């Protein structure tokens, strides 16, 4: 097995003075342009890139929106635009500015919808990326730091979603923000202090102060932290290098052995992987654009501005908060205020904390550089499946209005059923997966060569 020669640089760009100038100073080839991206049979290694590109889309569209938005909750703006039912009315500045962006600014509705769908995809891509990392077991030594940073990014993306939802100051916004405010208050001893610290006033009574603060969080503080953590995530990735899937090297070449952990085999960042990334970027942009053009949701003109007198019917959060919404709905009335604390704070926190602690439970003393087959890891795979089932069940409970409507009954009647299912289904699915995978590994151990055929 031959070691690659570090000085064996491609001379493709030798004629480019710009390349040589940069390479002399930054040593482009070694750490950056030559970074190896391993072969990936499933395309799952690209999910992180999708998350990155949606973040770029969020930053670009967010800049456009930020220049036109006004974080004012007071009724300060006499609307004179094209949304005829509000013509001549004095509206909260925030609501009116979003109306204006939506109906009166060229490319405004499109940009707002790209921002909206990119936010949905940002959370979704992070989630799927984490599924890939989780099920293939590559969060273990030495990549725990990146799992922890990634979990933090997921959390921050959710919080960004919460603050962003507040900004248009329509009646959905007001409802969601006051629920977040009331959940915060349920924390024993610290509730009041947390409310003051995070929201900076009572909501909705002090909405002008609270909204300005949400704006600051949403457009400056959290994006700055997210961008910094994304940078750290990528720097660690470059330093630690990718993991590889087994069997991707092709044994006929005179390359390293299949199982050699000391090297990584893949395509260089430039130009091969860069071309692939460009395709992924264009595809992401195309999907966002398509959804923005054909599925313009969040029609704030129909919902109306924040009102203290009403809650709109069928109010529901963004999909990534549906599980928290479900937890809040499922808690039985008999548990009283403590039930609200359980459903709104304890339950979600337990899931998030276990996300962080998992890497310290399922750990490896020696460095792991190959992605594993999830079917070979009964316990982690079963736990992952159970966790997904739990989130799914809670999300269904969050939509209990529609469940009840589908079965032609009341939410009061479906709630006990959903509560039992939420407790039973994840455990049952986890146990089934665990039993099946254990059986599979026993069969392979005893069957020997016979089992190698599948």
């Amino acid at each position, binding site marked *: 097995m031959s070691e690659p020669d570090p000085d064996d640089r491609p001379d493709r760009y030798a004629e480019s003075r710009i390349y040589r100038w940069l390479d002399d100073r930054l040593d482009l080839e070694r750490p950056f342009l030559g970074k190896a991206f391993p072969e990936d049979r499933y395309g799952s290694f690209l999910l992180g890139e999708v998350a990155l590109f949606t973040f770029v889309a969020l930053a670009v569209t967010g800049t456009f929106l930020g220049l036109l938005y006004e974080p004012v909750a007071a009724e300060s703006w006499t609307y004179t635009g094209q949304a005829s039912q509000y013509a001549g009315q004095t509206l909260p500045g925030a609501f009116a500015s979003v109306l204006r962006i939506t109906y009166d600014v060229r490319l405004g509705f499109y940009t707002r919808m790209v921002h909206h769908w990119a936010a949905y995809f940002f959370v979704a891509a992070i989630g799927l990326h984490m599924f890939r990392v989780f099920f293939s077991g590559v969060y273990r030594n030495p990549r725990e730091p990146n799992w922890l940073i990634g979990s933090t990014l997921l959390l921050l993306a959710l919080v960004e979603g919460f603050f962003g939802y507040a900004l248009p100051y329509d009646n959905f916004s007001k409802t969601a923000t006051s629920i977040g405010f009331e959940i915060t208050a349920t924390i024993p001893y610290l509730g009041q202090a947390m409310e003051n610290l995070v929201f*900076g006033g009572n909501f909705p009574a002090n909405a002008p102060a609270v909204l300005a603060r949400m704006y600051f969080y949403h457009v400056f503080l959290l994006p700055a932290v997210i961008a910094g953590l994304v940078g750290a995530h990528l720097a660690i990735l470059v330093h630690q290098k990718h993991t590889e899937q087994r069997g991707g*090297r092709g044994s006929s070449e005179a390359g390293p052995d299949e199982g050699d952990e000391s090297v990584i085999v893949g*395509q260089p960042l430039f130009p091969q992987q860069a071309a692939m990334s460009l395709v992924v970027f264009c595809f992401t942009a195309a999907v966002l654009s398509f959804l923005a053009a054909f599925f313009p949701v969040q029609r704030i003109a129909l919902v109306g501005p924040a009102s203290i007198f009403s*809650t709109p019917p069928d109010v529901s959060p963004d999909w990534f908060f549906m599980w928290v919404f479900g937890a809040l709905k499922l808690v039985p009335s008999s548990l009283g205020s403590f039930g609200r604390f359980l459903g709104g704070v304890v339950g979600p926190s337990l899931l998030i904390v276990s996300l962080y602690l998992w890497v310290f439970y399922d750990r490896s003393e020696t460095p792991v550089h190959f992605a594993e087959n999830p079917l070979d890891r009964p316990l982690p795979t079963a736990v992952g499946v159970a966790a997904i089932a739990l989130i799914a069940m809670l999300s269904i409970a969050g939509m209990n209005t529609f469940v009840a409507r589908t079965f032609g009954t009341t939410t009061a*009647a479906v709630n006990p059923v959903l509560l039992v299912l939420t407790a039973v289904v994840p455990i049952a699915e986890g146990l089934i997966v665990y039993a099946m995978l254990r059986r599979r590994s026993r069969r392979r151990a005893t069957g020997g060569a016979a089992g190698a055929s599948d």
Partner: protein
Amino acid sequence: MTGEDREEDRGPEPGHEESDATAGTLVPRADGDGAWYRPPEVTRRNVAKLLVGISGLASIGSIAVSAVTGLGDAGLATGASQLNYQNIYVQGTYLVDVDGNRLDANSALPPGQGKETTVLPEMQGGGALKVSEAVTLLLRFSENQFQRPTNQAGTVRGYVAYSGVCTHEGCIVSGREGQNLHCPCHNTVYDPLSGASVVGGPAPRPLPQLPIGIAQSGNLLLATGPFSGPIGPQ
């Protein structure tokens, strides 16, 4: 794979190398498994490091605590509300609609149909108190329909009034499910004929009832006392 594949050395495995500067004397482990380790030594350098660490943490910590409590106090300064269930309505406060007009008991709602409307307390000097804690639901049924635990003395001519703020997470109970009151947020259902007790969903307490009566002059609806309990989630 093609010939353009890139091979990169993963580099040496990161190890735990002993640094000479902190190395102590090797001694065998007490549990006798044959391993050797270097116990930390009490040196001038180690004591100095410890003291620098403690003082650094203390200075950062004290500034952080001051800053965080300062932020919290500043939030409180804009957030404290003087309103509570005992002073939003008092005896004799008129019920007004959202435009501030007092309500005539003959015409505010049709009798016996269970219809509802949103009302507010009248402020001193007139006008509606437009804050979310004060949002009140006024309903009108038939006089003999109410059951316990409704405060029957607090109803008048089939009118009954409850706080409009859900006791679960503070949404406005602005939906109906048949005769019952329905909160659109998390689907709590309250029975307005039984003291707004919870008949479905997660809310922990019934909606507080506002005792109402009719003014001696002018047939106007007014409160005969404060709300029966705290408003919204507690």
